[in-house]
């Protein structure tokens, strides 16, 4: 079915980038289910790894620059029998799409007493750290966490993004996928099984350990694993967890780890105030306070916009040095 598939069988894997895994997931779902359509801007030319040439125009919809309404168009199509993937590209454009996402997609099942379902996926990518200034550099997933009725994904590995995007397309509720462009070039093994799914709402322990629990979100996973590797040479053992799904959060996996280590660091690239780390920290305090040997530490972007100049932008996001220092503070 796809050129990327190597040997047959449910366990076969192939090494590919996060971006290629995203493309692969969409091609597989478009081929599997004719109700799946793609909607987005400039699809013909930047059609996400040549998806465009594989499918006819009724499956791939090149949108005018009307983010609010084409998101609403996707929702109307989802309610009446299709399963659209709406690609909003840069995450800051989610604000334009937020009215139909919040006021329609998230609410219609509830407000109609279950008469309507909205099986739709909203994709966007977070493009920070690339000198694009504040209007193209946001990581806005915490804002949507406050909306009931949405499911929110932010996976960090190629296999997870493939399996979660496929689960999202097959889910009957609106799902948002926040892709971190820091992860796009990252390569690792990805199952080739076209029915390989990662369940929504399940965290994954990316590095097992015993001294400090580190919950890392999106692009922060890369430095968490690097720091875990470095510190292991000093005999410090980090347990690194990727929630993968931000809503609903798998607090069971996180609390089990904290019960073991007694120490928790949260790292993400969203702004500090009311971010995912704040929510996780609050729940750990409510439900596992007795397990904590030290205060919870949070590393995230400060409450300032992402500046254009690289000299300033480099100051905004947590670094490996800061994470290693935080680990040492807790030991």
């Amino acid at each position, binding site marked *: 079915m796809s050129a990327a598939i190597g040997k047959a069988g449910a366990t076969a894997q192939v090494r590919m980038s996060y971006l290629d895994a995203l493309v692969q997931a969409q091609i597989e779902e478009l081929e599997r289910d004719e109700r799946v359509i793609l909607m987005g801007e400039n699809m013909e030319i930047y059609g996400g790894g040549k998806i465009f040439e594989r499918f006819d125009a009724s499956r791939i919809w090149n949108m005018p620059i009307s983010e609010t*309404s084409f998101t609403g168009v996707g929702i109307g199509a989802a309610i009446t029998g299709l399963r659209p993937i709406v690609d909003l590209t840069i995450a800051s454009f989610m604000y334009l799409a937020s009215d139909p996402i919040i006021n*329609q997609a998230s609410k219609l099942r509830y407000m109609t007493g279950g008469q309507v379902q909205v099986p739709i996926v909203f994709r966007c990518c977070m493009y920070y750290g690339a000198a694009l200034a504040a209007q193209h550099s946001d990581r806005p997933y915490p804002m949507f966490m406050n909306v009931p009725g949405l499911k929110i994904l932010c996976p960090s590995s190629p296999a997870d993004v493939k399996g979660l995007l496929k689960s999202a397309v097959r889910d*009957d509720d609106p799902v948002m996928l926040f892709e971190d462009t820091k992860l796009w070039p990252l390569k690792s093994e990805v199952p080739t099984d076209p029915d390989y799914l990662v369940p929504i709402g399940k965290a994954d322990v990316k590095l097992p350990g015993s001294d400090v629990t580190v919950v890392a979100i999106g692009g922060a996973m890369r430095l968490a694993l690097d720091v875990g590797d470095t510190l292991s040479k000093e005999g410090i053992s980090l347990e690194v967890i990727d929630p993968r799904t931000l809503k609903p959060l798998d607090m069971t996996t996180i609390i089990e780890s904290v019960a073991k280590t007694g120490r928790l660091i949260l790292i993400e690239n969203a702004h500090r105030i009311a971010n995912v780390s704040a929510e996780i920290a609050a729940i750990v305090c409510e439900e596992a306070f007795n397990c904590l040997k030290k205060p919870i530490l949070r590393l995230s972007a400060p409450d300032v916009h992402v500046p254009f100049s690289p000299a300033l932008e480099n100051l905004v996001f947590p670094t490996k040095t800061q994470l290693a220092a935080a680990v040492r503070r807790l030991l």
Partner: protein
Amino acid sequence: MPLNKSRQCETYRRMLRIRRFEEEGTKLYIAGKIPGAYHASIGQEATIVGACMALRDDDAMTGTHRSHGHPIGKGADLKALMAELMGKETGICKGRGGSMHLADKSVGIIGESAIVGGGIPLATGCGLSAKVRGTDQVSLCFFGDGAVNQGTFHESLNMASLWKLPVIYVCENNGYAITTSVARSHGQPSIAKRAESYGMTGIQIDGQDVRAVYETTDEAVQRARSGHGPTLIEAKTYRFDEHQVGLFVEKSPYRSAEEIEEHKTRRDPIVLYRHVLLSDGISEGELATIEAEVLKTVSEAIRFGEESAMPDAASLYDYLYSDPIPDAAQRATGSR
């Protein structure tokens, strides 16, 4: 194609159902039996029913915060609508929607949006869906004169025209966005004229004349079903009551008492249609039968609503997700 006798009677029945439902609903609201806000469709029945009569049950429809008339116009059962207004478990939306959101999917309504202009992209998406699925379904979108100034109107009509989507945009132009008149908010006061800038047909009609609304919508539906794209219909209508029951501000009238009285006495769409039916040979007796039957149906709906139970506390999280997340529910209610 003009309506035959039985469809004419059905048109009259639905218009009258809206009127009596709204009159009784207003009384119940004032009596405290309906919570929230109450936006009555009285005066706008011809626009609603005329447009709905041109549709099939499997055609999709979206509406507005003034939502009661749309499902009734599309032929919905009144019992679940009245129960919904009262916040009951038997309500069409299980008590989760209420007055501004009376959507009945069984007659094709996918949502009544209290975000002004919010339904316009959704109806456009229904049209896109019909095109992708290769059916001859159409979608119809009700919105008011106020919604025309939302960006979603511009963006959606552009897309519908670009892809020749089977969508009928019906503007219930009652002259006022709450209190702001068209004259005070539209650079181009002819809403129908805006269609031309999107490359689609735009038609202005008398929204109090149910035959004109039906015939214009029917032509638009035929164009849409045969692949010739969308139509914008501006139906000039009038809201007899306040924007919302109880919202009248005595010292700052935005429309004159004479204007309201003129519409009520000379431009009542139900009175106008009754004359038409009589001159078309339908007897007083036949009309009286319909009128008595409508009163009975509305009374039964009220009784059904009053006798129905309120939703159970344990059902708070029902209908939020397709697969319930019990963990989240427990956490939110502090029971963990």
